[in-house]
């Protein structure tokens, strides 16, 4: 009887929504989660872009240089293709800059603070470590570089 009642459990897991929704939980002092979500989405965008990029850059070999010249015209000025291209560039920039922080923290365990005896105000060393400053630098650098890229792409 007890077992039978036990088997009907409610599953409230947010599943993939956790990958794209930064407002799923209200977590104070946790911009790393935003970085995680952005890293995922930009990673997916970047790899899809990569597939298109390989297909389009193999045009000279596949179809000759005339086709290449036509293709490049799509990138001149503000066109739908160039806008998509610009978005992909932003994704790659964020993924790359944030990736440096992730390699340092994940593979080399750098910038994540030292284990300590908990003391007020009870903020985990990971959230105070050097990686946090790198994270802010990531956002700043990303915006600057992306804007610069926009200038290069659309105004030169």
């Amino acid at each position: 009887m007890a077992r039978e009642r036990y088997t009907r459990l409610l599953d409230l897991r947010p599943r993939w929504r956790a990958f794209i929704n930064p407002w799923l939980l209200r977590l104070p002092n946790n911009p790393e989660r935003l970085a995680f979500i952005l890293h995922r989405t930009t990673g997916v965008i970047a790899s899809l872009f990569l597939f298109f990029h390989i297909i389009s850059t193999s045009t000279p070999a596949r179809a000759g240089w005339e086709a290449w010249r036509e293709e490049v015209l799509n990138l001149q000025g503000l066109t739908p293709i160039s806008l998509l291209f610009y978005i992909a560039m932003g994704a790659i920039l964020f993924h790359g800059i944030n990736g440096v922080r992730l390699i340092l923290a994940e593979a080399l365990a750098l910038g994540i603070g030292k284990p300590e005896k908990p003391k007020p105000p009870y903020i985990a060393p990971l959230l105070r470590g050097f990686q946090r400053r790198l994270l802010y630098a990531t956002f700043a650098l990303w915006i600057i570089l992306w804007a610069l890229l926009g200038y290069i792409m659309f105004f030169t």
Partner: protein
Amino acid sequence: MVRASVLQLLQYVTGALMVFLVSWHLAMRIPWLRGMESFIETLDATVVYGEITGFGLLILILAYATLFHGINGLRVILLELRHGEYWDRLVNVLALIVFIFFAALATYGIVGVEPPA
């Protein structure tokens, strides 16, 4: 089966490699660094051909590293989204096929190119 630690190590190594290679790859498109006027000029057929012949190997290394990194990343996400024996196998096999296909295409794009008329 390949150990997860090996794949992840490769993920980090290719990631670190890409930080440099992609920066270089993007820098090639900055007109001022190349003494040109506009972004579109850097995509001119002769310029691109010069790049392909001059740095073919570097571009190929970049392509392989990026493909591995990207496809492994997608694979990890897909494996997290759903579970099941068939699903896991499907994702792994698909990842391998996609990698081989695009690696071959990238190689052909570099090797099979002819000088512009």
